[in-house]
């Protein structure tokens, strides 16, 4: 007998999504489908026919959880679309900002999963630790990029300003002082995950998938993207269940025709020799990656020459070529692409981390009891509000508008 377990909405994540699991008599998931039910974001359409500088300002509003990767991906895409080579100091400032932000975002996730893993007697300690780390790394983002959330000073052509020598010294000092706390935090989280996973009987291979990995850089990003390997399908074509296909609000991005896994574990496997797979491995990888980002942040801070210019002069008319800003955000690869002609944005598209993971997350629940489903989902730290591409038009039958309208 086939039964259906539906979790709607899935919790302790950003945005709204549904997890539909078909289960057998023992409650084992035979088919998992995870899909976004968050309304359309539409920002890619809003920036069209506007000045190129508009894109990072608007597109960072895609989400308030990881606004830094969106700003950077947008700025990098526009930089390339305008043919700008940003100064070295600007690149270092951007790298330090992203690394600090990624630590912050991992810490937020630890807060979200704390009710799963952290025992009551350690709960306050864990929350304090999360707060302490966030306070310090967000300070770095604040100082360099203007604001910890929706940064004002990451600009097309580089950064609004360089930091002063005083600030450089202060940031290095503050980050250096954070190291022992960060190491203790990572240790705490990893221990809690390991111990409670055992107590809860979470299977070692829960959530193991063998999808290709999507990761372009250990800590920052690149300006290239293989468009030939990339394709998108609408949810109706992807999900076997027509009901799910109709209601799913995100397109399914594929590389070489297949869905991928992106995020900290993918990066750690691709660039740092991390081997393990599955739910527990994802938590461990995310925690371990904090230290990689910490090193990247300090390294970039150390290399910044405060006397150098952090912003390039540029011609805003545009090259007419597609520019790519492919940034490794906390939840994976964030791909923004833009085309600028005659000083106006002619094309804009963003394929954000959770969009890549959505088709991978559902099947990752398969083969285990449905009670573990939420654990599988949370291990990906999904962030739905930025991942949503299509809109529901008819509230009655939940059907979407014509296909050509939904590719935004």
């Amino acid at each position: 007998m086939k039964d259906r377990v539906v979790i709607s909405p899935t919790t302790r994540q950003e945005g709204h999504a549904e997890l539909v699991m078909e289960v057998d008599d023992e409650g084992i998931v035979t088919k998992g489908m995870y899909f976004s039910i968050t309304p359309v974001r539409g920002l890619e359409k809003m920036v069209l026919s506007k000045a190129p500088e508009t894109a990072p300002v608007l597109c960072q509003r895609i989400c308030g959880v990881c606004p830094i990767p969106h700003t950077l991906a947008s700025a990098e895409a526009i930089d390339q679309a305008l043919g700008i080579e940003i100064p070295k100091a600007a690149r270092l400032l951007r790298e330090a900002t992203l690394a600090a932000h990624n630590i912050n975002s991992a810490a937020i996730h630890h807060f979200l999963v704390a009710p799963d893993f952290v025992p009551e007697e350690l709960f306050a300690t864990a929350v304090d630790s999360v707060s302490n780390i966030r306070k310090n790394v967000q300070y770095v983002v604040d100082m360099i990029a203007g604001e910890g959330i929706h940064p004002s000073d990451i600009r097309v052509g580089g950064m609004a300003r360089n930091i002063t020598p005083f600030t450089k010294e202060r940031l290095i000092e503050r980050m250096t002082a954070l190291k022992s706390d960060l190491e203790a935090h990572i240790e705490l989280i990893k221990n809690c995950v390991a111990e409670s996973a055992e107590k809860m009987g979470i299977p070692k291979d829960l959530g193991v998938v063998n999808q290709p990995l999507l990761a372009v850089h250990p800590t920052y990003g690149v300006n290239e993207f293989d468009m030939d390997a990339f394709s998108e399908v609408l949810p109706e074509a992807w999900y076997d269940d027509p009901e799910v296909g109709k209601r799913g609000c995100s397109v399914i991005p594929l590389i070489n025709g297949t869905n991928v896994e992106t995020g900290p574990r993918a990066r750690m496997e691709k660039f740092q020799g991390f081997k393990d797979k599955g739910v527990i491995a994802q938590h461990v990888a995310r925690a371990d990656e904090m230290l990689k980002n910490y090193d990247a942040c300090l390294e970039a801070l150390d290399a910044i020459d405060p006397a150098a210019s952090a912003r390039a002069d540029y011609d805003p008319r545009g090259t007419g070529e597609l520019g790519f800003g492919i940034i490794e955000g906390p939840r994976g690869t964030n791909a923004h692409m833009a085309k600028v002609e005659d000083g106006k944005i002619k094309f804009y598209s963003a394929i954000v981390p959770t969009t890549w993971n959505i088709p991978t997350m559902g099947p990752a629940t398969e083969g285990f009891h449905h009670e573990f489903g939420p654990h599988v989902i949370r291990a990906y730290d999904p962030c739905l509000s930025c991942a949503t591409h299509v809109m529901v038009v008819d509230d009655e039958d939940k059907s979407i508008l014509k296909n050509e309208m939904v590719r935004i």
Partner: protein
Amino acid sequence: MPLGTYKEALSARSTDSKILDVSQDGGIVSALLCYALDEGIIEGAVVAGTPDEDWRPIPTVVTSADEVIAAAGTKYSMSPTLSALKEATRQYGLEKVGVVATPCQTQGLRKAQAYPFTRFVVDKIKLLIGIYCMENFPMASLDTFATAKLGFDSLTDATKMDIGKGKFWLTKDGEDSGLAIKETHGYEQAGCNICMDYVAEWADVSTGSVGSPDGWSTVLTRTDDGDSIFKAAVDAGLIETKPMDDVKPGLPLLEKLAKGKKDKNGKERENRAKLGLPLPVEY
């Protein structure tokens, strides 16, 4: 109370000749900033500088006594000083900031502090020095005073600019040329005509020349912080003071001008209200 709430009124002057050489009057703003910087009360300050010596004020972040002194002196055109606060509290990395502000800017800052809109910016302000201000002129007005009214070839020929004794003064080749204040009416920015604050009533410390003899400034200490920083600078020997009762023209002139501004602009506010024009709230 035309002068707002204050703890003490004193006539004062910096004791540092380096400051007095460049200051408009008693060098109180510079002396206080230098003292606060030295003592670590502030790590830097946002001020109106004139880096290009064309009299155009540019909001500037200063972090040393030398930079304070380089930015000394009154500017008679609008400086969007508060616009540099973000830079000061971000890329400059300042956690404790001083601000030199006109009364309108002081009001804006206090409002910003009262509302939670300016995260990690206004909460870093540790010293707010207000300067007396009757009105302020756009750069085009200053150009007009220099060229059309005083016969200069250009405003940049002026080596000193001052307002005092009922006149707007420009100095060229050591010679002072004065323009009666009433000649400047109509050239001020329109908003100044509905401002009710002459003496920066919401600052930590307010200062300006009016009420004290030449080369001295009249200081009103207003908040606990402002009062203690000013007194500490006096105790440290950086500022010398005289009681207001001992100096001419003294506090009555300051009160007269402050009240005059309120009366005149109060009427203008009524006029504008009758016309249905919007008015900013006064506190």
